[in-house]
């Protein structure tokens, strides 16, 4: 099955794992590592939580935030 993945290597594969582009043997190796590693399980859960947080942003919130950023920038100019 080849050399085992390290945790440091695994975290770089998470996006590819979630979108299905990590396939075949690499996918099995990824899953075997996760099954045996608490740290990487937690990391994967954090990534899924992160995606859910971004998924809860509405277009209005994104636009509101842009306005807020702009306003902050304007304030910065007027006080400097």
């Amino acid at each position: 099955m080849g050399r085992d993945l390290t945790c440091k290597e695994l975290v770089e594969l998470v996006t590819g794992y979630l979108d299905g582009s990590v396939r075949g043997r690499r996918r099995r190796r990824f899953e075997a590592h996760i099954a045996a590693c608490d740290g990487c399980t937690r990391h994967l859960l954090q990534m899924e939580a992160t995606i859910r947080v971004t998924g809860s942003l509405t277009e209005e919130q994104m636009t509101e935030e842009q306005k807020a950023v702009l306003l902050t920038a304007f304030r910065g100019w007027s006080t400097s």
Partner: protein
Amino acid sequence: MSLVEMLQPSMLRVARMYVSTAAVAEEVVQETWLGVLRGIDRFQGRSSLRTWIFRILTNIAKTRGQREGRSLPFASLAGDDLDAPAVDPDRFDTGEASSQGAWSTLPDDWTGIPEDRLLGRETLAVIGRVIDGLPPMQAEVIRLRDALGWTSEEVRNALDLTETNQRVLLHRARAKVRSALEAYLSSETT
């Protein structure tokens, strides 16, 4: 919400990546809708409608940007940190061969965090700001993929990215959002 209202904010942002001002970006978006109306008969349904609209937008915006003498290298839109590690290297063991690359500090367990805190208004405000601060192409990829639920193929076609670039941009953006979320969540509990 109409398709126009739904796509307009992203269209303005994408156009703005290529042209010099918000006003020009608005013109590009208007021109895009005209192009869409004129070309709708030629739309084959091989890609999704929104992808097709964004292809038209990207073409018009790029042409307009070039005419303005504003041709930006890919790195200035994508960011120059695409090779950076997803997690701080200090979190991993650098010691002897057998443990090298393993977690030296375990990530926090987030499963106990109540949903209403994780997805609360304040958290979302923080994350919205983090995304706004990302390099423009990273920001747009994570917005389209994770906030608006587009598929990787749609995003790749809409923004004219290779499969690898799309994934690397998303990976980088998610890594930074995760790390900001971690900092926010841990500062709140202490």
